[in-house]
């Protein structure tokens, strides 16, 4: 439901959302591989802060929830809580193959994933681990979705 442009006020908000996306990173039992690649995006080499992207400490400050890991049974409750703490509009990016498919842990009784069985996922970034380029491309796609959100109802979840 991407409504047509609704005047200056909405265009300003859309522009602000595009230029100031704050990330919250949730490790749902990841092996730390994807986490290192995510942090690499903040280094001088990739420097995502030049487009306003920051890694935030609190989920309440964030717009984009980045989840890595296959969602183990112990992290599921925390993941749901954290997702509900993000103020809308929000988007979820699944970083790596684990949250997308379960990866090598698929079928294990210890995981509750893949991620889209638990919370709606907007963008998948496959890879084990994905390169920082792919993560930045995925987050950029997520920001496009974020800027167009008009209502609290999450659309596009699978």
């Amino acid at each position: 439901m991407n409504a047509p442009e609704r005047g200056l006020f909405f265009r300003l908000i859309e522009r602000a959302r595009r230029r100031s996306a704050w990330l919250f990173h949730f490790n749902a039992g990841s092996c730390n591989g994807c986490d290192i690649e995510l942090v690499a995006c903040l280094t001088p080499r990739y420097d995502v802060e030049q487009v306003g992207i920051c890694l935030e400490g609190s989920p309440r400050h964030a717009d984009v929830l980045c989840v890595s890991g296959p969602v183990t049974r112990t992290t599921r409750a925390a993941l749901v809580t954290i997702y509900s703490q993000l103020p809308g509009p929000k988007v979820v990016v699944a970083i790596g193959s684990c949250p997308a498919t379960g990866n090598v842990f698929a079928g294990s009784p210890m995981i509750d994933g893949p991620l889209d069985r638990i919370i709606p996922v907007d963008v998948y970034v496959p890879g084990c681990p994905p390169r920082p380029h792919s993560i930045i491309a995925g987050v950029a796609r997520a920001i496009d979705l974020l800027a167009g959100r008009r209502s609290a109802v999450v659309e596009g979840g699978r």
Partner: protein
Amino acid sequence: MNPLRSLLALLVFPGLLYALPMGWLMLGMERKLRARFQGRIGPPLSQPFYDVVKLLAKWPVPRVVADKWLLAGLPLLAVGSMMGALTLLPVFAGESGFPGDLILLVGLLEMPPLCMILAGYASRSIYGEVGATREAIISIASNVPLLAALVALATAANSMHLSEIAVATPWTVRIPALLAILFCLPVKLRLNPFSLANAEQEILAGPLTEFDGPLLALWELAHALEWVALTGFAATLMFPVRSGLWFVDALVFVLLSLILVPLLTLLASATARLKIAQATRLLWRWGSVIAAVALATALLVRHGGH
């Protein structure tokens, strides 16, 4: 004090109309310069403006455990008191303010840290409480040199009136007092060696951990205004000559405020976060020494003058 003049000071210069864009510019400069010092390109100067617009347009998640009126009132109080502090700054020549406005200014400058401490406890979050405790300790630690320096200035100028203090204080007192105040600036602005209270990532976001959307935007505004008010206060003390031409005085004030931003950013980029005991020791030992020198010189100047 002329009511029209004080209304102009509140709403135009150095109040709202000037302080809001200036605060965003200062925050933007701080982020851009910090990025450049770290070898990054960094965000554009307009970044803090977009951050605030985005936060205002978010849909906050209601919370049941915390008192919502308290949580909404505290950032508003912080913004309001910073506006008041900006109004009192003795930028121009002649009679502005009123006798004793130094005390009011100190009280107003203390409001945002106090609001943040209360907000940290009121938000009912463990990270908020840790951040609030740190903010309380660091506030007490930095207020010893700051208040001693202000007492020295007031003693040397023999006045509690800001516009007189800004002009009449002799250099022998002004320099050590100014050094002590500059020492306290990174503490008051929660910049790096003293960024204990908001300690990003370490204790999530400190007292502001549980704030989201428009309320967080208000805190960002209060922080931007804090930058303008504190650097502005130092700027009014740095240059004791008022030309009488309003635009020259305003320009000098703006330039001196802006000079402080790269210096503070350089300090923040070059240092790592201290522990609370180290920061307190540093402030009480070295900050207080400078402030004590200022105080001693002030007493000598005052009694030598008689």
